């Protein structure tokens, strides 16, 4: 018992002596204080609680809102346009549409000699019924000179070919505004 107390007291004395040793301090306190001040100046200042929380949660909230909006738009798009129904719209037929009405309009326009309108109606007719609906040349010629326009040559080369094949026709249509070249000024007929 006495030995234990002696050992315990000896250990306490040893502990006190050990604590009396001073750690070697090579810490440059002034330099460290300077560096601390520098670091404090560089580091961002503490913001108030409200601003700090808004800055911390602002971007995640914006991201979540944008994601929700994008998901909603995608869902709305999928619901409104089910696959397979894109672009199929049924409309009642107009009474003035169809091949018969178009033919009627062509004939009316040809009889009136309206070339501009005949083109539009001819286009409608050919679009609706195909090339079989193209009227014959006699019917077009009967509509007058303006309605016979599509039968004329469509290019300059075709026009030259046509003139070479029919030289007499072109000579007959040439205007005679100048005198004969072999007749001199003194000639008197």
């Amino acid at each position, binding site marked *: 018992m006495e030995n234990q107390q002696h050992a315990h007291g000896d250990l306490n004395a*040893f502990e006190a002596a050990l604590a009396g040793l*001073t750690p070697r301090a090579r*810490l440059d306190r002034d330099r460290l204080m300077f560096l601390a001040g520098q670091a404090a100046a560089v580091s961002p200042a503490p913001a108030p609680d409200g601003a700090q929380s808004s800055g911390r949660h602002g971007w995640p909230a914006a991201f979540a809102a944008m994601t929700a909006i994008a998901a909603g738009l995608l869902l709305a798009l999928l619901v409104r346009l089910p696959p397979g129904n894109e672009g199929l719209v049924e409309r009642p037929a107009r009474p003035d549409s169809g091949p018969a009405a178009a033919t009627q309009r062509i004939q009316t326009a040809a009889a009136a000699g309206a070339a501009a309108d005949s083109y539009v109606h001819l286009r409608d007719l050919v679009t609706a019924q195909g090339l079989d609906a193209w009227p014959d040349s006699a019917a077009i010629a009967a509509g007058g000179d303006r309605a016979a326009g599509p039968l004329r040559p469509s290019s300059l080369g075709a026009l030259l070919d046509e003139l070479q094949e029919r030289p007499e026709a072109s000579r007959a249509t040439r205007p005679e505004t100048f005198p004969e070249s072999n007749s001199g000024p003194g000639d008197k007929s």
Partner: protein
Amino acid sequence: MSGITPEILARLLDEHGSALLLYARQWCDAPEDMVQEAVLQLVRQQAVPENPVGWLFQVVRNLALNEARAAQRRAKRESAATGGRESWFAATEDDRLDAAAATDALAGLPAEERETIVARLWGGLSFEEIGRLMGTSSSSAHRNYHRGLTALREKLGATWKTSSTRTAT
């Protein structure tokens, strides 16, 4: 300035600077850099930690352990050990304990016991704080402290007996 004021920082350095150095010196050869980095990290904190001293010890411990691992990889630690260890303590007029012998004895202790003794004797931390620092319970820290102190007493027995005998006479 951030959360910590210059007055508090100066007082922390005056009261715990040398203990922090000794604490970091257990693991690395450049404890000044570890303490400096820990202090700068404390200054950069937005709010002052609840226990600045314990916080500093924790940060110094992490930094010093990382540095020790890096030094082991570089294999410089081994060469420094063979070249002789620098004394961890300053020479004092009290000759009851030799500083170099105490350094060797302390360095030869198991890591847990050595860390506990340094944190308790020179850091002034409680056993509860030491347990939190090392990730153990306060009773484990208490046991490590007494076991290490007894081992130190036995290692330094010859010197200590002579001194105590001289003191008693």
